[in-house]
């Protein structure tokens, strides 16, 4: 399975190799991976999956926060509504992840659940849940500076997005 995915990605991009996976049980009880980390010399990237693009965006956000912190002990205590409108899907992905980084920087809010209330490919409305960083309970991992357009891919057919993060 892993080998298969590796080969698949080799075709999409020769520069990446899959390393880790995270699974999620979907509404039908089927185990499904949410995202995978990919390698890049200076930085880090992720590929996120979904049943639709909206879910892939939500999983990309989950992947982003998983890189930054151990989400196991983060509780859904607070929520933030985010509404974005951009020119295209790539720009929306860029803005979505960077807006979340901004929220983290300014409010120190660790987010772990992302409910897409509306998503149309160039705009979205999401409610995000999590809690404020508490050094006594939460472990931060890698600092992320920004999502980038570098090697960004939005695969509409397979509901998959790829983004490289500057860390």
């Amino acid at each position, binding site marked *: 399975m892993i080998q298969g995915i590796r080969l698949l990605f080799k075709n999409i991009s*020769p*520069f990446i190799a899959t*390393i880790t996976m995270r699974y999620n049980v979907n509404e039908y009880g089927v185990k499904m991976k949410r995202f995978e*980390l990919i*390698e*890049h*010399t*200076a*930085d*880090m990237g992720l590929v996120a999956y979904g049943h639709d693009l909206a879910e892939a965006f939500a999983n990309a956000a989950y992947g982003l926060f998983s890189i*930054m912190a151990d989400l196991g002990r983060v509780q859904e205590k607070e929520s933030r509504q985010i509404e974005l409108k951009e*020119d295209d899907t*790539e*720009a929306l992905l*860029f*803005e979505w992840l*960077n807006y979340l*980084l*901004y929220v*983290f*920087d*300014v409010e*120190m809010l660790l987010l772990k659940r992302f409910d897409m209330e509306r998503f149309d490919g160039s705009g979205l409305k999401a409610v995000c849940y999590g809690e404020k*960083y508490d050094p006594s309970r939460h*472990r*931060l*991992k*890698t*600092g992320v*500076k*920004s999502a*980038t*357009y*570098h090697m*960004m891919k939005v695969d509409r057919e397979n509901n998959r997005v790829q983004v*490289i993060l*500057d*860390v």
Partner: protein
Amino acid sequence: MATWNGPLEKIDDYRWRIPKSYKQGMRVPGIIYADADMMKQIRGEQALEQVANVAFLPGIVNHSLAMPDIHWGYGFPIGGVAAMDVKSGVVSPGGVGYDINCGVRALRSNLKADDIRPKVPELIDALFSQIPCGVGKGGRLRVSYDDLDRVLTEGSGWAVKNGFGEKEDLLHTEAEGAIPDADPSLVGERAKKRGLPQLGSLGSGNHFLEIQEVDAIYDEDSAKALGIFKGQVLVMIHSGSRGLGYQVCDDYLVVMGRIQEKYKLDLPDRQLAAAPIQSGEGKDYLSAMACAANYAWCNRQVIMHWTRETVMRVLGLSPRDFGGELIYDVAHNIAKFEEHEVDGKLRKLLVHRKGATRAFGPGHEELPPDFKKLGQPVIVPGDMGTASYLLLGTETAMAETFGSTCHGAGRKMSRKGAMRAAKGRRIDKELADRGIYVHAFGRGTLAEEMPEAYKDVDEVVAVVDGAGISRKVARMVPMGVMKG
């Protein structure tokens, strides 16, 4: 990892050329500074394709350049240098990078390493408690939005005016710690909100503060002139513009992305998005970039001030006993207006240095009086396990690289690769066994930043020294490291 198989012509032991004929659309050839062994490793990724892509940018003069610490970046390679004609050229945020004015400064001291060695752990722990660092850590400074606007225009000068350091520090800072034409109204609200609580913090990732020992001198006269001697204690600070700089980069990548058709810029990579220097968008970016650069200089100045205070307190020293003068501060992610000789004529250019350091030769008017004859000091931070260097800029750099040289060791291993290689190991213990005390915010950073993840800084410096684009003065090894 796909190997890059494009054409590469060997010019000499340290120089390689990607001919203009490689891709239709290249305006100039690419020149890479590296030795043959390094080139094998460089070819292992697509950084050379990025050198070729940068050559597409309108107004690029002479060559698309890359230093030996080149590695794969966004749009521009890290280690890339590109100078654009001010009238016909473009400015590209990707040619500056996310961490605008990421840079490094080094302080000299009157202390001998052997005298303070047992105190290093205590010293590093004290610095760790005094200087905020790590993911999302805010600064100790409480500044208002009005103050922040002044930081964005005045840079290090604001810090000195407010009691963080001395006037002399400014003379020993590139651009005296502030570049002109910074307009805070062009920095978005989000950038300011991120920057406000983070002023006076080190950050995470490859940023660090080190207590170092000078372990080799290559040029006694120059070292003496810089106040450097073997066995001396130096302090090095590596930090940048924090969330404010990242947000400025993001905001203007969006702006630039929208105008590529308007200015008929047909570029091979969205991350290369650019705007004519003379356009409204180009001027706005440069003005916002100047703000972020000034913020970074102020940040390093404040951190240095706290470092001085802490070292003197822990070691019980007076300012005179400590010394603690700033040798120099250099930016290694920036675009600056400079005059350079091109085909015998002086031309005004915008020089992008993305993971590259300015290395002006002797006599340059921007150098402070005490270094004018020597050339500009260049600080090259290594990784925490090996060494850092103090170099001087040269005439050759002025003639070939728009007065530029390398900026560090450059990664060769991905962060995940480093995590894998570090699995089951205690990097902090390994370093302790070699006499290096490390206090890091997270063990993750320590693994990602472990020595094997970087190219050998000795080899990188040997190339720039061998090629003559800077010359070695001293080598420093870490005694204690504070890591974000």
